[in-house]
């Protein structure tokens, strides 16, 4: 006989459904007067100087942008520090185009171990109707040195690495996330 292993199971996930905005960004869809502002609607680093703009869409396996998804972002500040009161943002996709837009600071490098640093990145989490378990992914930047990043280094199919890297497009960074099929984004079990 052995002792019982007393760890418990995580609560099972369920889809956020088509009305995730009622709960998470009610003002955005016109349910007003309950919260003074939607959580995460402000820029994640409102007072910081060196700002960037990221725009993107979440695209399904038929090539159609999701217009009912919610995308969340978590990132370090420009100096590579995670700050509990800053660094989080939440964006509903535009109801017509499916586009989301984030104005933030470019994150600094953060540690992986005491010896290894991670390339600048923003953590992304996606919830929507038809997504049974929220999807984790990351956004890196094409004009940063991404060599030696421990997560990117783990991607066996090297041609998939660019699915995690935002491209410069004029004054903004552009980053589409593809849920399925050609150009499928790398999603994370992390």
């Amino acid at each position, binding site marked *: 006989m052995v002792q019982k292993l007393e760890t418990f199971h995580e609560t*099972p996930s369920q889809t956020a459904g088509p009305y995730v905005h009622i709960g998470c960004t009610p003002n955005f869809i016109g349910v007003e007067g*309950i919260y003074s502002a939607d959580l995460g609607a402000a820029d994640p680093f409102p007072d910081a100087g060196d700002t960037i703009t990221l725009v993107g869409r979440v695209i399904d396996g038929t090539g159609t942008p999701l217009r009912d998804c919610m995308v969340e972002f978590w990132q370090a500040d420009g100096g590579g520090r995670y700050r509990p009161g800053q660094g989080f943002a939440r964006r509903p996709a535009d109801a017509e185009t499916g586009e989301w837009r984030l104005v933030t600071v470019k994150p600094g490098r953060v540690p992986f171990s005491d010896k290894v640093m991670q390339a600048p990145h923003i*953590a992304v989490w996606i919830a929507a109707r038809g*997504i049974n378990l929220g*999807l984790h992914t990351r956004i890196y930047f094409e004009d940063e040195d991404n060599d030696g990043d421990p997560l990117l280094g783990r991607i066996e199919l090297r041609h998939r690495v660019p699915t995690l890297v935002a491209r410069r497009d004029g004054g903004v960074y552009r980053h589409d996330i593809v849920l399925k099929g050609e150009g499928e984004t790398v999603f994370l079990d992390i």
Partner: protein
Amino acid sequence: MPDETGTRITRGYTGYPETHAAMGSLYQRDFGQHPLPYSPGYKTTVARSPSLPLLSMPSTITEETGPVFGHEMLADLDNDLTCNFTGRPAIGERIIVHGRVTDQERRPQRGVLIEVWQANAGGRYRHRKDGYLAPLDPDFGGCGRCITDDEGRYEFHTIKPGAYPWPNGTNDWRPAHIHFSIFGTGFGQRLITQMYFEGDPLIPRCPIIATIPDPKVAERLVAPLDMAMAMPMDSLAYRFDIVLRGRRQTTFENRMEGL
């Protein structure tokens, strides 16, 4: 947000910010405890589920930290859906939904933000895309939020949502449910789920619940009636406990800075 042991992390990196002093690497997710992403019985999953395997990797500081939300962001009625929309009482069966948020080691998760949303008593959402025949209740908005206390407890007052039909199969109905969005202390613990009500005959017929292959697992989303917490002449109560991913934290793995 230090946990009760006050211990630090286990991996190579020791330099967490003060505010994240008790961080530790997250337990690997057990996908057997979750719905399958590709579940053709729930048609929308077909085009929205990745076809390639996820990239597995131990958590890093990015997933082990997360936003912290303080009680000061909450208004008095944020957790009372019965009257937080117009101030007048919503129509429906008054209920209390409460429970505890812990991690996989049963450590209470304090300071956790929980957001909920739901249909009204007739099964209708306040959303331009919801065209169900059931009427809107002018006094029901449909969302609420709260932050767990030091023991990880939370409580909402609301009305029992109605069942509603949805376009999937020709005659699919959702059992009464409340949607929950939960922030742990790390972004990697982020979770959205749904709570169901004990005794609902639509539960075994629901294609969304059936995306969880093991009915024993799905049962953990069904909240029992909790008469001990019911308020006489006021509200029935249901209890829904939530478990977030655990963290490796032991004093043996603790070490001094720089060692």
